[in-house]
């Protein structure tokens, strides 16, 4: 029996070791770092290629008609056309710069709001539920109202983006602050930090991992809200962004155009994640010894 158990345990250990090896290739420090980078870049590409491969396969089996599942190549052709004509840069510029500005404004508004919500009990009791309620309002609901109030201007778009992103970021910050080990603000207090210093030197850095998670969700809200706003409000004043492109594809019932639009929106999302949030997150977690190697 013990013999048997040991055997089992060894097997298990071998399996786990295998998994671990998959996880953490051993090697020299430099090699490991390079391999790490390679993995960061290569793995999503491989995953993407696999997904496109599956798509191509499904398409080639002709299980669904072309208008339901366009060929990957057809979608690529659409994107290629956009790239060739240079339009894609315009779309990306219009949408991304708006999303970034909207996100930054949201961040600037949501941070003090989140601090207030987290630290002033009465404020939280009064406005916490309202903010969460606001967050659950779909952007599409705001667009007509915003168009009515602000006209077809950038103000409309930013209003819609902010209404989505601000509550999300604020709630993320609140969650982050709620999770701070209570000893840290106490330390701050005995070290002589007032309310402002406490927020700046203790609460915000301590809540950073949760705050970052909230920011990621907030970015998703910004970007989605922006797309919704661009889909619904169309006008030359507003420029021509990805949402408008997608909307045209939908209006023309052109699946390959719709998929091209989705692909572009998706790539922006992935790009922001890979270029901004992922490195930020990694460095924040690593500097706190939370790199999660296990």
């Amino acid at each position, binding site marked *: 029996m013990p013999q048997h158990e040991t055997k089992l345990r060894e097997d298990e250990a071998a399996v786990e070791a295998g998994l671990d090896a998959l996880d953490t290739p051993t090697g020299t420090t430099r090699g490991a770092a390079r391999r790490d980078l390679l993995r960061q870049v290569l793995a999503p590409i491989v995953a993407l290629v696999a997904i496109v491969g599956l798509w191509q396969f499904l398409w080639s089996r002709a299980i669904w008609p072309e208008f339901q599942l366009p060929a990957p190549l057809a979608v690529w052709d659409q994107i290629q056309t956009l790239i060739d004509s240079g339009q894609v840069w315009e779309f990306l510029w219009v949408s991304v710069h708006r999303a970034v500005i909207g996100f930054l404004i949201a961040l600037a508004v949501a941070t003090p709001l989140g601090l207030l919500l987290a630290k002033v009990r009465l404020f939280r009791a009064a406005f916490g539920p309202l903010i969460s309620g606001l967050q659950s309002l779909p952007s599409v609901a705001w667009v007509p109202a915003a168009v009515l109030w602000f006209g077809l201007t950038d103000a409309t778009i930013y209003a819609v983006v902010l209404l989505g992103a601000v509550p999300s970021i604020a709630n993320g910050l609140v969650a982050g602050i709620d999770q701070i080990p209570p*000893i*840290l603000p*106490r*330390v701050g*207090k*005995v*070290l*002589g*930090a007032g309310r402002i*210093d406490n927020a700046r*030197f*203790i609460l915000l*850095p*301590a809540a*950073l991992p949760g705050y970052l998670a909230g920011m990621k969700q907030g970015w998703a809200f910004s970007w989605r809200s922006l797309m919704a706003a661009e889909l619904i409000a169309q006008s030359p004043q507003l420029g021509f962004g990805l949402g408008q492109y997608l909307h045209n594809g939908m209006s023309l019932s052109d699946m390959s155009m719709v998929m091209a639009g989705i692909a572009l929106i998706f790539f922006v999302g992935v790009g922001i994640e890979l270029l901004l949030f992922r490195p930020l997150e990694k460095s*924040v977690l690593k*500097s*706190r*010894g939370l790199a999660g190697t296990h």
Partner: protein
Amino acid sequence: MTATLEAPVPTAIDAAVRLTGVRKSFGHGTRAVTALDGIDLTVAPGEFVCLLGASGCGKTTVLNLIAKLDKPSAGSIELTTTRPAVMFQEAALMPWLTAARNIELPLRLAGVKRAERQAKTLELLELVRLGGVGDKRPHELSGGMRQRVALARALASAISGNGGKASSLLLMDEPFSALDAITRDVLQGELLRVWKATGTAVVFVTHDVREAVRLGQRVVLLSSKPGRVVQEWDVDGLSQTAESARIDEINARLREVISSHAAA
């Protein structure tokens, strides 16, 4: 900063800290726990008081109350000193700051200039025998090293808190518990040196009777469930033999108090 050192203004009370009839309960209703009941304790300015007591008797609670981190359920606490510097029982370092930056934090909060701050930090790192690990994060340090960083931070806070002036207060909760005997000896010496140099009052919690007697001017023994002051000993300037007799005496009393509690 250039102000001359003034002697502490003698107040009507002439105590750095005075606890009168302090009671502290945690929780509500049936789950309520009375940690402290009727604590009377006075610490004179510049005095070094050691708190002894069984595990869980309320020593940390007393320090928290003095530091105004908790409110007493009853009774009053008067402080005539500047904001006390506290060293918690846990290291409680900011995980996102390096050891050096953790030590620097109180100086920064007090608005000390950058260059001065860094010089002071280096000095304190050397003092706790951690020169060279200033750029490490808390999670890269051993338990004892973390405790020493916390000690350095508390000392930095004590220095910055009174701006070099007198009548300050240092609260320390088992500051040397995770250290080897030798390092502990060194740091005890350093603590005494700082204490003498700055004239700060110290409330020092420890489980080591020998340490209490060696460091303190007065030893206060708390009973548990609820915490009360059972007995006090003056242990200032004892001879070698008197000291070891006093240690035995305190140990005996401690044993008595703790066993009676265990029996209760």
